[in-house]
């Protein structure tokens, strides 16, 4: 260090600027890795292009802040279905929109619906899950499948919706409607109002359907 230059805080000889920089960068690395409980920085084999990733994240966030497709619209306001279950039943509708570019040339390999149940108390709570799809006119919806679950405790539950999503895509309507029907005293079966970390969502594995190669016979 230049003669006579002292580190003002500790009275030791100040480090040469480059040495100080190296020490600080090493300290920053160690500090971040230790707070993330990582022994070393992860090795990313196939880093996704930064631009594509940030676009996807912004789009996902933008959807959530305006239309909130993943969030259950509160259709459950005393929505009684005549002739469906007990007259005291109530239902919640979830609408999942898939982006257009996914709908066309995509083959759905699997799709899973994730729901975070908020149970009103001990015991089992029956819930009917209906997957609805628009009829050819697009004016009404028909029940594509119906599943009856017995929910014992709060937490995440999954449901395979691969078939329903694939048939929606083949019809060219990239929108899945899920109806949850519960007994009236249950209130809302989903964790409402919480931060978006408990919103229902659909995770799908898809494959771009390659244009059919013309087989030379």
């Amino acid at each position: 260090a230049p003669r006579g230059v002292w580190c003002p805080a500790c009275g030791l000889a100040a480090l040469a600027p480059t040495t100080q920089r190296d020490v600080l960068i090493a300290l920053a690395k160690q500090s971040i890795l230790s707070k993330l409980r990582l022994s070393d920085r992860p090795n990313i084999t196939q880093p996704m292009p930064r631009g594509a990733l940030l676009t996807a994240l912004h789009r996902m966030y933008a959807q959530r802040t305006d239309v909130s497709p993943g969030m259950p619209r509160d259709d459950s306001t005393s929505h009684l279905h005549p002739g469906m279950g007990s007259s005291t039943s109530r239902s919640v509708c979830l609408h999942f929109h898939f982006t257009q570019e996914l709908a066309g040339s995509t083959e759905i390999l699997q799709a899973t619906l994730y729901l975070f149940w908020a149970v009103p108390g001990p015991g089992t709570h029956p819930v009917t899950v209906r997957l609805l799809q628009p009829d050819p006119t697009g004016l009404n919806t028909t029940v594509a499948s119906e599943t009856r679950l017995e929910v014992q405790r709060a937490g995440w539950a999954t449901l395979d919706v691969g078939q329903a999503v694939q048939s929606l895509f083949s019809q060219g309507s990239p929108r899945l409607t899920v109806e949850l029907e519960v007994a009236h005293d249950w209130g809302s079966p989903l964790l409402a109002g919480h931060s978006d970390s408990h919103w229902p969502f659909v995770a799908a594995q898809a494959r771009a359907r390659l244009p059919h190669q013309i087989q030379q016979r």
Partner: protein
Amino acid sequence: SIDCRGDSRMCCRQEFFVDFKEIGWEDWIIQPEGYHMNYCAGLCPLHMAGIPGLAASFHTAVLNLIKANSADAAMDSCCVPTQRRPLSLLYYDQHSNIIKTDIPDMIVDACGCT
């Protein structure tokens, strides 16, 4: 609080930015672009105990305590962070999952003398 300038010797906040691209971490840390690893440096002679960055009343109280206890005039106080905020990270973990996490108290916004 006071930000350190070239030759400031009194307690101040030294800005230090770690650019993740410079250290080759931009492939696994998606956001932000870097980390403001600011730190506190500088002298805290007796008459500065409790300032800057803390309530003046605290400073007066500290000085009165020192006089009352006729503390050893050679004793200095320490230049420490008085305000900090979390570092929000969006990164890939070792299984290539995308994780968002807020690490508390990672960024020093202000320094002062104890």
